[in-house]
């Protein structure tokens, strides 16, 4: 059905259908966020030898996050008098909208996907870069010293780690010869998962992705011991919730992207092809999410100067070297075989 729809001439009807389907995805993502937050708290709890949420919704605290969201919805919304009001209001929207937009090109299985555009990977990287503007806008508009420091740090960190992030995927583009995410998965079906062909790129990408998500150990943006909460100090209630939401939607998007780029998306393991692709995708995806949560329980936060130097002095040279070694390896491979 989707095929026919994509080939029909675009109009209001198509817009309506896409809108409904997009809303379904939005609800799925919100469901994911709700339970990702719970899973994070539970896993962190078990890793630190305590229970985690266990009061609301039975032993597993299944209603904890829903209750938290309701609480936030009922909180009074304060905008400081000195703040730049229009920018203050628009900043959460700037931060959130790109986080949902990047999901448009991500293929979950060979059938289940929205836009199949030729520059899928570039689209993801370009749009995800926009969130930095939301953080800086929030920091600037709050007219608060902590917020401004946090916003500036967010910008410096995100742009510094974007370079190794985009450079590490170049090795994958060289091997698959396409920016389309479907083609990248298809290339992995022909050869092997790219984690085996591009292990260096995988580690650079994973580290840079953690920094882009501003998760521990790279959460200097909201280092609570020095900056209270970073760029969203002055935000309360649901405006604040949208910054948190965009962070977790990015966790969803980034984990999906790692799954597609390095773990072969919906491709099954050998001899297990009878299990549907959606389940494979879900399994690999959950594993990547778990790795991000695991990081949080394991690593202490970096120092600001170490963070910047690590990005520019270690990750950028490694990523650059990886590109040329991959190109050279490909050339040699073609020469000898």
């Amino acid at each position: 059905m989707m095929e026919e729809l994509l080939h029909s001439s675009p109009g209001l009807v198509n817009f309506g259908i896409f809108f409904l389907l997009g809303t379904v995805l939005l609800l799925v993502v919100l469901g994911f966020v709700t339970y990702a937050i719970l899973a994070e708290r539970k896993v962190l709890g078990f890793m630190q030898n305590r229970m985690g949420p266990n009061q609301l919704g039975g032993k597993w605290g299944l209603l904890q996050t829903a209750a938290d969201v309701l609480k936030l919805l009922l909180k009074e919304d304060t905008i400081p008098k000195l703040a730049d009001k229009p920018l203050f209001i628009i900043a959460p929207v700037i931060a959130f909208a790109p986080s949902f937009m990047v999901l448009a090109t991500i293929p979950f299985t060979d059938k289940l996907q929205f836009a199949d555009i030729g520059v899928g990977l570039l689209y993801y990287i370009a749009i995800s870069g926009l969130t930095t503007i939301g953080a800086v806008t929030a920091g600037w508009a709050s007219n608060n010293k902590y917020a401004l420091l946090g916003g500036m740090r967010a910008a410096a960190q995100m742009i510094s780690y974007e370079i190794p992030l985009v450079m590490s995927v170049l090795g994958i583009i060289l091997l698959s010869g396409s920016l389309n995410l479907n083609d990248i998965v298809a290339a992995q079906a022909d050869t092997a998962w790219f984690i085996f062909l591009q292990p260096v790129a995988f580690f650079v990408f994973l580290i840079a992705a953690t920094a882009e998500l501003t998760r521990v150990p790279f959460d200097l943006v909201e280092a609570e011991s020095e900056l209270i909460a970073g760029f969203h100090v002055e935000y309360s209630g649901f405006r604040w919730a949208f910054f948190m939401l965009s962070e977790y939607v990015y966790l969803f998007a980034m984990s999906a992207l790692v799954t597609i780029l390095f773990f072969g998306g919906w491709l099954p393991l050998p001899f297990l092809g009878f299990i549907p692709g959606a389940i494979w995708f879900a399994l690999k995806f959950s594993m990547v999410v778990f790795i991000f949560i695991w990081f949080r329980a394991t690593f202490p936060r970096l120092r600001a100067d170490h963070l910047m130097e690590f990005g520019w002095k270690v990750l950028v040279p490694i990523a650059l070297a990886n590109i040329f070694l991959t190109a050279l390896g490909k050339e040699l491979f073609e020469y000898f075989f």
Partner: protein
Amino acid sequence: MELLNLYQNNYLIVFVFLCLGVILPVVALFLGKLLRPYKPSEAKYTTYESGIEPFHDSRVQFNVRYYIFALMFVIFDVETVFLYPWAVAYDNLGIFALIEMTIFVFMLIIGLVYAWKKKVLKWI
């Protein structure tokens, strides 16, 4: 015509996602407005500064290092923009393109090494 339709539909989806991404915060904040209390008081609307009276304007002149890093970002981001089409078309270009790209990136690496030696990358 078929392909044009496909192309337009795909970008229509992107536009739909943009709309949804904007509508959700707007609707949620509007609904929240009906639910949340509104009890203004003078002290609530002061800037938060860990409990002490806020002083000076917070928008002061900032450390120039942030600006230098932004400049570095622009240089290397443009470099990757050049690398992307090269990587996509690499199969058709062959060894000559590899040598050309090596020269291009080498010149940028000189820039990185220069910045490194000048202690630009040292964050204080």
